[in-house]
């Protein structure tokens, strides 16, 4: 039984999502609290986007949202469907760069650009799907790694300097006035949070749906799923398409928020970052991706501030300890624990009510 199944108990919607609702409430209140407590500014500072800790921390939160969306999409591919892809960064990079190029070089508006980006994302996912039936396991990892590194090479090659900015990175992407990350930080913050919540609910629904169950079956034993009559190829392709669109969305937010998009987002290092995030949160537990992204970005940021050169070393050591000692991640471990607690509680209740069990 997988961790995903363990957690799905049928209770009213509002009870099941109480943590999410609390999280959304906290996220909305967060900038105000920071503005009042840390900055000592009036609450109007938040929607007037005055400089200060509130604005800065909103920016950090937006970065977390981008990473969370990206990590969640990787969790769908690796954690839920069990596809060992090492080219996930390609999904993100294609989204980030194509939105940037459409806005900057083609001069399109935000909405049509986003629609085109989603179309491109589907095409990229189909490219991965073409490879699917041919190579399995490590072969698939290698081919996807290859595809991603070719993308990275094309992005950073001097031949397309006018569009991609080559080694320097893509800069000067015009963002629409109503969603400018500096002038309208609070609005950008709310929009990105909204996107994250929507995508999260969608993913929860997807994993709980019959399609999601088939994906889990593919991960656990593909031959068996095949024998039961599921055309696993189409399920995997579907997962890839959804993941690619999500990652492209994350990439688009990244382009809109960051003043410069570097070719590093297409590298193996960025795929590894996604791996790290879902490992921190818990592989195969969609919500773990959000927790993982937050922990990852914040540790990275504060370690960098406190230890400077040594921060990456500490991150690497932490990563190894995590794999060895907390393999199910924060959310995974918490779920198994809380299940055990729930079991104990129900046993106690049975005992107290006098029935001696079965």
């Amino acid at each position, binding site marked *: 039984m997988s961790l995903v199944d363990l957690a799905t108990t049928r209770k009213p919607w509002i009870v099941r999502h109480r943590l999410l609702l609390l999280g959304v409430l906290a996220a909305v209140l967060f900038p105000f609290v920071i503005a009042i407590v840390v900055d000592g500014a009036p609450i109007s500072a938040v929607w007037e986007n005055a400089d200060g800790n509130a604005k800065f921390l909103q920016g950090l939160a937006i970065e977390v949202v981008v990473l969370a969306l990206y990590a969640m999409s990787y969790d769908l591919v690796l954690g839920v469907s069990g596809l060992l892809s090492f080219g996930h960064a390609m999904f993100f990079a294609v989204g980030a760069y194509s939105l940037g190029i459409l806005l900057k070089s083609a001069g399109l508006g935000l909405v049509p650009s986003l629609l085109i980006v989603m179309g491109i994302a589907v095409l990229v996912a189909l490219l991965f799907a073409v*490879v699917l039936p*041919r190579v*399995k396991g490590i072969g698939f990892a290698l081919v996807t790694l290859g595809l991603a590194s*070719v993308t990275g090479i094309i992005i950073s090659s001097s*031949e397309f300097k006018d569009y991609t900015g080559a080694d320097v990175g893509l800069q000067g992407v015009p963002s629409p006035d109503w969603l400018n990350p500096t002038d309208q930080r609070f609005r950008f913050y709310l929009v990105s949070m909204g996107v994250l919540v929507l995508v999260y609910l969608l993913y929860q629904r997807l994993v709980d749906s019959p399609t999601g169950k088939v994906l889990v079956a593919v991960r656990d034993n593909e031959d068996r799923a095949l024998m039961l009559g599921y055309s696993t190829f189409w399920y995997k392709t579907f997962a890839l398409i959804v993941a690619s669109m999500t990652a492209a969305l994350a990439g688009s937010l990244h382009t809109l928020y960051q003043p410069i998009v570097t070719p590093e987002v297409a590298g193996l290092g960025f795929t590894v970052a996604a791996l790290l995030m879902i490992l921190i949160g818990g*592989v195969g537990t969609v919500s773990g991706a959000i927790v993982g992204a937050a922990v990852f970005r914040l540790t990275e940021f504060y370690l960098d501030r406190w230890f400077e050169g*040594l921060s990456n070393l500490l991150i690497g050591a932490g*990563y190894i300890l995590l794999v060895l000692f907390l*393999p199910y991640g924060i959310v995974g471990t918490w779920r198994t624990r809380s299940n055990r607690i729930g079991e104990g509680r129900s046993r106690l209740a049975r005992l107290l009510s006098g029935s001696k069990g079965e």
Partner: protein
Amino acid sequence: MTTATAKPSLGDRWSKAWTRDRRRIIVAAVVAALLVIGLGGLDPEDWFVTIMRGLATGAITFLVASGLSLILGLMDVLNLAHGELFMLGAYLGWTAYIRPDTTVDLLAPILITIAPFALWALWRPLGRKVAALGSRWAGWLLVAVGLGGWWWAWRLFPLAIWDPSVYAESPITFSLAFDIGTLVPLPAGTFGGPALIAVLAMLVAASIAAVGLVSFNPTGSPRPSAKGIGASIVALAAGLSILAWREGLVEGLFAMNPTLRFFLAGIVSVIVISAIGAGVEVALIRPLYDRPIYQLMITLGFGFILIELVREVWGRPEFTMPKPPAFNGIGEGCPGQGIGDLFSGCSTIEMFGARIRTYNELFIVGIGIIVLVGVSLLIKRTRIGMVIRAGVQDRHMVEALGVNVRVVFMGVFAMGAGLAALGGVLAGPSIGLSPEMGGRLLLSALIALAIGGLTSFPGAAVGAVLVGILQQIIIRYGQTGIPLPWLEEPFKPSPPLVPASTVLLMIVILLVLPNGLLGKAEH
């Protein structure tokens, strides 16, 4: 006398191979034809140089790919830290080669640390008491305390080391000094406290860590074997005598023939990296044999740590490793004529109307061939090789037959790491040292493996040579340009296209032949 069975004729065997492996043969023929066409577009005098350079790149790639392939075949672990072991091997080789004084200073504390660990069995009674406390955390606590104490003792030891943040004392400067012959020993460091206390503290700290580790599996006799006691005494004695006679040892190493020192550095690096490889297998891979994806992740994390460590210790900038002087001579009597002048001390040799660099193109290729033959013989002709081959085919069966697979796993991991380190030391003088060199080479090695067949040892060699020659052809075209009919200027592939071309070759070959050119189907 009549022969009862006739050997199948060549024609028969060929037709059988054709029906069985038609697709492989066609792909191999197409790849060969492409390479010939690629070479044909170059000037005839470039052919030999390009092929030799391709073989040299292939030899380095092969040294990494072969270990990767053995480990993958035997234990189903894709060791993503293999490139970083290659890189660390190069850095360690550089250290032993250019800074023997630092190496000597490092050796003493390491040998002293080994001494208590060699007496493994002696700690079992204590380990049992710790285990009886009932929590594994007690053991981990001891390990942590031991590590802390060790670090404190380590800080007391004298260490004459470079400083990457000061240009005049950085590895870059020392490499240059070696080349112009002005390399001198660094001033010797002094103990940060009484020497006796430092040594004792290190022994005690290592013993505490050893007790902690033993407590995880304390069963067995509490009496150390004669070998263990011997090793412990030798390590301690060696460590102490290095401390006592440091000056003489350093002077001796600096006075040594630099080419000889290069070989010595290679041996040191291979031994150390093999030990690290064995340690990685025991400490990181073994606990995770039933969780394959986590093994992949942990090797990735370990590689990441190694890169950061190297950046911390040797500094971020790239620097060169000087060539051994026996392959770096110029002037009188150079370039040499023909292969016979390989050891004449010239840096280049005239062959077939082309100038070949003795180190880059001949020495490296030679070592690559020796390793290929040696490891092939080891695998084909020895008992260990038989166990490895059987293990690649069916690990569980070999285990059931009573072979201690664990030890074989550790040995193969150590051997693979050692081969990577050898590759690193060899590659250092030709491609330079940088923390990122491992990642680049790992990509090449993975591509070579995918092309040749993931778990096939000859496949690793074929794939590596193919990748090497293809890369060199593209690099050469980057200089001369390809005249294309629809372009006015000849098309010059930019440097990033070199890896891209090999990646494309890999993707195409994997799509046609999912098991590579020489690999066998998984099921």
